[in-house]
């Protein structure tokens, strides 16, 4: 009776969120799996089942592989650069000033820098896109190209050259993401007991030694979380590509990503079945990435 009351109490709290989760997250997933086996166009009353034909088509679809290749590049570059930059900034902001008085300090003006770093994070992606559209604008009105032209250089097609476009977008993604991870890592650093730094500093460790021998190992868990977040973000990128890139994924598909292709296929070309198959592929890619990352980086926890 006692147990029943206890679990009944817990279950009572869980019913609402669980139902919402089932209805709005799980059931659409199941439906997507079901639709991936059909040739539904979004208007037919009864979808026609076509078996695995959509997946067969997917493997021969050049655009699909192009999107996968772009995801691979983003998956490598985005977490690596974002985390490296965020760690560097977080270290400077929190510990870079060396030990003065009691405990460690950041470089001079670190509170101000914190706000600066975090600012892009509070902007909506659409706003960010419009902002960078002005920065990358290919003629003399562009922020970068305006300066280049004034200095006598030729303007650069940041978003129109296939070899540059993805990197231009990556720069925006990193610029936007760094602030959040600076804050995340700052919090992680604050949790490291000051004694370690003091002891190491007394033994003559410099800032580099402090960073690599104390900060980095003790931040491992936080970095791992950041890595998974950024990896999942690498499978999205929808809004940025849709608004900022030329012709949503161009030029020549150089910046296209799966969510953009899914959106086009489902809503512009009315191939909902095929788009669902892409969605299913994306689902497995994301899940595989998350599981792999957590498996590979699993290690004994360091007790503080």
């Amino acid at each position, binding site marked *: 009776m006692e147990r029943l009351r206890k679990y009944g109490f817990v279950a009572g709290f869980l019913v609402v969120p669980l139902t919402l989760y089932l209805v*709005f997250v799980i059931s*659409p*997933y199941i*439906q*997507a*799996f*079901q*639709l991936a086996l059909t040739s*539904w*166009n*979004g*208007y*037919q*009353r009864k*979808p026609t089942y076509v078996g695995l034909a959509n997946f067969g088509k997917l493997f021969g679809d050049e655009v699909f592989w192009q999107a996968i290749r772009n995801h691979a590049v983003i998956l490598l570059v985005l977490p690596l650069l974002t985390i490296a930059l965020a760690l560097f900034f977080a270290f400077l902001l929190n510990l870079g000033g060396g030990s003065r008085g009691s405990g460690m300090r950041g470089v001079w003006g670190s509170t101000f820098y914190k706000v600066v770093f975090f600012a892009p994070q509070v902007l*909506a*992606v*659409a706003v960010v*896109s*419009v902002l960078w559209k002005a920065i*990358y*604008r*290919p*003629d003399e009105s562009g922020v970068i*190209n305006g300066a280049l032209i004034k200095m006598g250089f030729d303007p650069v*097609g*940041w*978003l*129109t050259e*296939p070899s540059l476009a993805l990197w231009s977008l990556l720069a925006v993604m990193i610029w936007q993401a760094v602030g959040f991870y600076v804050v995340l890592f700052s919090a992680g650093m604050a949790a490291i007991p000051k004694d370690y730094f003091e002891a190491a500093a007394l033994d003559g460790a410099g800032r580099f030694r402090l960073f690599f021998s104390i900060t980095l190992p003790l931040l491992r868990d936080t970095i791992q979380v950041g890595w998974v977040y950024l990896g*999942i973000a690498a*499978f*999205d990128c*929808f*809004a940025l590509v*849709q*608004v900022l890139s*030329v*012709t949503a994924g*161009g*030029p*020549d*598909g150089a910046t296209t990503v799966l*969510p953009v292709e*899914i*959106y086009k296929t*489902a*809503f*512009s070309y*009315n*191939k*909902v079945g095929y*788009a*669902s198959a*892409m*969605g*299913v592929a*994306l*689902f497995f890619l*994301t899940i595989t990435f998350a599981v792999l990352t957590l498996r590979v980086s699993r290690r004994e926890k360091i007790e503080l």
Partner: protein
Amino acid sequence: MTHPGEITRRQLLRRIGMTALVVGPGAGLLSACATGGGPEPVASASAGASASGLVSATNPLGVDAKKPLEVVIFSGGLGDAYATGVHQPLYTKAHAGVQIKHVGTQNIGTQLRPRFLSGDVPDVVNNSGPEALDLAALAAEGHLADLTPLWDAPSVDDPGKKVRDTVTPAALENAKLNGKDLVLNYIVSHRALWYDSKFFADKGWTLPTTWEEFKALGETAKKEGIVLFAFPGQKGPYYQLWNMLYSAAKIGGNQVIIDIDNLVDNAWKSEAVKASVTAWLDVQTAFGDKSYLGLDHTQTQIKHLQHKVLFYPCGSWLENEMVKDKPKDFEYAIAPIPSITAADKMPYGAIQVGVGENFVVAAKGKNPEGGLEYMRLMLSKEGAKGFTEKTKNLTVVNGAAEGLDLTPGLVSAAKAQDAAGQNIITDARFEGWYKELFDYAWQQQNTLMAGRLTVEEYLDKVQKKADDIKADSSIAKQTRNA
């Protein structure tokens, strides 16, 4: 008619914000409203209303004033004031006591797709904008009412005339979908090259009629730092695809476009298309500016207003779209595309005159007769005139713009149409029929214009896409004869 002018930046931001939510990682969510399995559709009410005893001389379509009418209007570039301020009052005046439910929205597809699936459909739909419904797919499901009773009904202005005799023939031709009359195209637009006639007069320049003159003017303009022509590569590059298709039709006749629409084998590799694409690529290489490949339509149109671009390929809505930014001394005028070869099938004066802005009546709605009657009133002179006043766009109704004070751009377009006479370039309908092919053609065109493809490679690629579409049995095929 979908052109990027219909979507403002704010709308876009909002839409992106929303879709970003939907298409998160694991875009399975996309199908949230899918296979619900709506109720069986009710037996289609016969739109002819022969059964209802309400048909009379003043009520030829047999409207029951007790039945409410729901009208959904795309409130984009044209707004929806023409519906609430002109067409709906006409309907309530004609049928005393009738209730109208008006819905203005920018998300036609998102809002109405679930309603068509569930069977709770509005009566009149203005299908437009980037999220427009796929009308061919709706027609295949029997959702669209046959417009034949409307075409055969007496006109509001002259009961002796049928509605079909009061509209421009292109409206009747373009109504066909899967062989039936299902879609009302309401506006008429003129597409060719746009320029500032005052600026030309000041400079003492005349319109080039041949490709040699076009290029010579390009040299003159280049010396003054003006680009001969530009199209927006970032958003709206299909203005240039239209341009190249219309040029091809000028060289080889409208059959060139009709073949492309009908997915005829190697239609894209015809001599006319090749000549047109080659000529435009030449002009782009010699006089173009690559930076436009990264600009959107608004940015390009502003630069056109600043006289940085001489000719801009677009339609007659351009003038109204740019009305807020237009300097006083800039006067929009239309220029036919210069003749590319000496042996062109169509004379220099030929321009594209097309119909657009789709309206449909739901066949399985509650009030299909009301829907057809609403269209009949839209096609009255009063309804059409009011529309032109509110939106600065011409309608398919013959003579409805008489007595109106038209803008210089519209006047120039009307004059160009008179000059063209029978030499009207047809519209390319694969834009609506096979959007995937259309999008592919202008995406690859950007690559071509950036100098990364040759004309042959470009046409091979597009032809292959057309072949793929033809072979794809899941895509419903349309055909046209003229």
